[in-house]
């Protein structure tokens, strides 16, 4: 059985088991599925790295009739990042959602929702069929909404409702684009569409899909739902929601603009997208600076970090495509997405530990926690290094590649955004760091075991390791990359 099929089936089977089986057995099955899927993700990465891109024609039917899933470098990079975050979130949830710790309801529901979310992410990262991608992001949104609401409080429900409005509007806009594409080209397959001659409504289709996916990615000005939704969920859920979910719609955007219809991109549209990204960087950072609750700071930081990703469009798309720096910009953006996923998940898991001890995530209540839990504090600091984009982290590698592309193409304004965003990130992450490392009263509850504290530290270390060993991921991302890789940018 191919690694691809295993990766798709395991989380689904795990979710089914977690729903059908009685509590202790279902939970064990879910944990087993998490472990196995993580393994499958790594095997798939090895397959892609050493044997080329596996291709799965569902049911044996080729497009335009059937649906094809392909694992390229981008897919497996995102899939392995997802697996690392999911495995860590699962470990954290083993305690956070243990029977007795959490209510019966959440202890049952977390596991299937998590595995369904994971299934959806894998589908989105692999599928080459626009409608299948739609089903994937719908599954993703519904599972994510369930996780946002799992806390059960009125604020969490309001956050879930707000999220839902944006998610539903986004899905339908995306679907409208898909309908136009199918009507114009008679196919939904990304690679087939790329070979068809352009039709008049393609631009509209691309615009609709992009707008819909932006709403789902929470790009400014569609970001208002994100901070309350991500901050209101329990820590393991926040880790997945903030670290992973926005990457799914962003990955589809990359596929649309660089694989499906690279020739339909106009410079004005590309610039507009990057301007929205710039606004997101500024707005998200200012929002983070204004918060007094750590989870909200971390969530607003996601708004800002998402903004960076959208700088890739004018740097690697449109007139810029096919020039030497385009591949660097594209790869840099993916590096930023990967390292943000790992670092942000680490942050939320660390905050979860602190909330368990301090009983709150207000900065004033977290004073001095670094002494009590040095490992999680260190994890938070390492994640901050990645988010600020300091070397030698994955965030730095991404930032360096994007900035080089910006200067090389004469679009240095985007480099200014990159650099300024890093300083803003340092500013809003400094406050929690200073509070954590201050001497202060220590909370009453006992800190979690070292093994549990190690989980966010491992994730944060992975985000740094992504920078230290960036050659491997860089080469991996070159497999199936839409733009020609140029050496020595």
């Amino acid at each position, binding site marked *: 059985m191919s690694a691809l099929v295993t990766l798709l089936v395991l989380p689904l089977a795990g979710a089914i088991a977690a729903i059908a089986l009685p509590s202790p057995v279902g939970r064990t099955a879910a944990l087993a599925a998490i472990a196995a899927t993580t393994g499958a993700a790594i095997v798939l990465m090895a397959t892609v790295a050493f044997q080329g891109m596996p291709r799965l024609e569902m049911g044996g039917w080729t497009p335009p009739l059937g649906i094809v899933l392909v694992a390229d470098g981008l897919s497996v990079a995102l899939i392995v990042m997802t697996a690392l975050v999911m495995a860590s979130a699962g470990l954290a949830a083993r305690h956070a959602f243990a029977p007795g710790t959490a209510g019966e309801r959440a202890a049952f529901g977390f596991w299937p929702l998590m595995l369904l979310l994971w299934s959806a992410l894998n589908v989105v990262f692999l599928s080459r069929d626009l409608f299948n991608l739609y089903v994937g992001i719908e599954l993703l949104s519904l599972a994510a909404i369930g996780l946002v609401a799992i806390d059960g409080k009125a604020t969490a429900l309001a956050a879930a409702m707000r999220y839902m409005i944006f998610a539903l509007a986004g899905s339908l806009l995306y679907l409208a684009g898909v309908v136009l594409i199918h009507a114009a080209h008679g196919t939904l397959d990304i690679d087939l569409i790329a070979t068809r001659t352009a039709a008049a409504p393609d631009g509209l289709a691309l615009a609709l899909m992009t707008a819909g996916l932006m709403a789902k990615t929470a790009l400014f000005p569609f970001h208002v739902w994100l901070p309350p939704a991500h901050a209101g969920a329990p820590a393991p859920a926040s880790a997945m929601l903030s670290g992973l979910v926005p990457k799914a719609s962003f990955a589809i955007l990359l596929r649309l603009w660089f694989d499906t219809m690279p020739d339909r991109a106009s410079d004005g549209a590309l610039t507009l997208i990057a301007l929205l990204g710039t606004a997101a960087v500024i707005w998200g950072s200012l929002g983070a600076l204004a918060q007094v609750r750590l989870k909200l700071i971390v969530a607003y930081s996601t708004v800002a970090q998402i903004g960076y990703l959208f700088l890739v469009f004018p740097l690697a798309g449109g007139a810029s495509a096919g020039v030497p720096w385009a591949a660097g910009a594209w790869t840099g953006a993916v590096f930023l997405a990967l390292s943000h996923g790992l670092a942000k998940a680490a942050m939320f898991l660390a905050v979860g530990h602190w909330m368990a001890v301090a009983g709150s995530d207000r900065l004033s209540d977290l004073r001095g926690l670094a002494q009590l839990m040095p490992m999680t504090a260190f994890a938070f600091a390492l994640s901050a290094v990645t988010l600020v984009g300091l070397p030698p982290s994955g965030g730095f590698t991404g930032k360096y590649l994007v900035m080089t592309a910006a200067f090389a193409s004469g679009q240095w304004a985007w480099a200014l955004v990159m650099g300024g965003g890093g300083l803003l990130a340092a500013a809003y992450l400094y406050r929690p760091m200073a509070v954590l490392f201050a001497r202060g009263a220590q909370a009453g509850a006992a800190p979690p075991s070292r093994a549990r504290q190690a989980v966010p530290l491992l994730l944060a270390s992975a985000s740094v390791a992504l920078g230290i060993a960036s050659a491997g991921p*860089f080469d991996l991302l070159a497999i199936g990359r839409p733009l020609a890789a140029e050496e020595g940018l």
Partner: protein
Amino acid sequence: MTALLPVLILLTSLVPAVITFFLDQESHLLRNALSLGGAVLKVALIVVMLFAVAGGAAYETTIPLAPGLVLLLRIDALALLFVSLSATLWLLTTIYAIAYFGTQPELSRFFGFFSLCVAATTGIALSGSLISFFIFFELLTLSTWPLVAHKQDEASLKAARSYLLYALPCSAALLWAIVWLESATGPVLFTEPPDLDGLDPMSLRAIFALFILGFGMKAAIVPLHGWLPAAMAAPAPVSALLHAVAVVKAGAFGVIRVIYDVFGAARVAELGVGIPLAVLASATIIWGSLRALQQHDIKKRLAFSTVSQVSYIVLGAALAGPYGMIGGLAHLVHQGLMKITLFFCAGIYDVRAGVRSIAGLNGLGPRMPWTSTCFSLGALGMIGLPPMAGFVSKIYLGIGGLESGAPWVLAVLAASTLLNAAYFLPLLYRLWFLEPSPDATGDENAPALVVPAVIATLGALGAGVLAASAVSPLGWATLIAERGDIR
């Protein structure tokens, strides 16, 4: 094996750093053994290499990251000058720090970051490419922050915040400079001159300014110096690290690399950016000295003295001529040896006699003779009294000024010398010639604190007395200049 040597030198402090983080607070013995073992091993490796490099060998290791991001570690004479300084002083500081802290809390964190700091400095010294330099430079920024904040009281946290407030915007400027430059020239290696003709002179000047902004903060060039006196809130070993072993040195070293290995002395002269930098350095020299005069806290005075003295190195580099460069390079080592002596002694006065203010020094000389002798010799060296090391630096810098058509440098040096005397001699007067206050206590029954100070003093003395020999810092700097490791 030889290709691995640079990595090994790096690992001698990186490995202890990582292991130390995971040690229990109570594992004093293991932690001390790790720190000391790493320091001794590093010095040993460097001694081995000193002989080889003097014979003309160069070691190089390449670790490819993403395209354009090549981590290149290279040992040449210039790298070795800096790395041997920091390795030797690290060993001394480690001994000193172990004695200084005793069994205080949070030591695993402290020594972890301490070793990390030295690893970063080693990396800076060995970096063979601009981007490697930047990576280690930022690692240094980050690993220094917890050290400055170590005491975790209000003053320390404020100092640490101020440090980052200066450091991060300046590293953003540095990254801008590097990316701007490299997007036009490709990755910049220090061994081969980048082709700068693709950039117009105005862009080059802007890039140069960004570089100076980036490095000048660490080198505490006015007006980017504010963090350094504030950082005196940190414990004495950290001050030694900031002022002598690592941080300000890294900044000055960066200026040297940029002038000689990125732009090249000729291009710096052609762009007309050397003399403005020399003027800025001179202003820093004078300003730092004037501010030092106003301080009543020993460590504060020493801190402003550093602001002043480090700019000697920048001045030498900015003059962009052989003598200036030799003077600057030699002063890199000289200032390190003298300043670490002074900080070691200031720490001893603090922990053994409870003295922090200058007024408290009255009559301590006879009571703490070893410490006070070391302190006095260090101070005299700073003033530039022959045969101490500081004298040698000043002579070369003066000649360098004349050689580069900037005779006003002599005036700066003279004024600085007078000011140095003005803020150091009163201290010596108090130590040796005033009566102690009746309730004064103090002893120096702490060999682990005193011995490093004595060794550092002997080093500073030796560097001056033996300046003519090939193994002295001056001799080595001359070797670097003659061999053309830097252009």
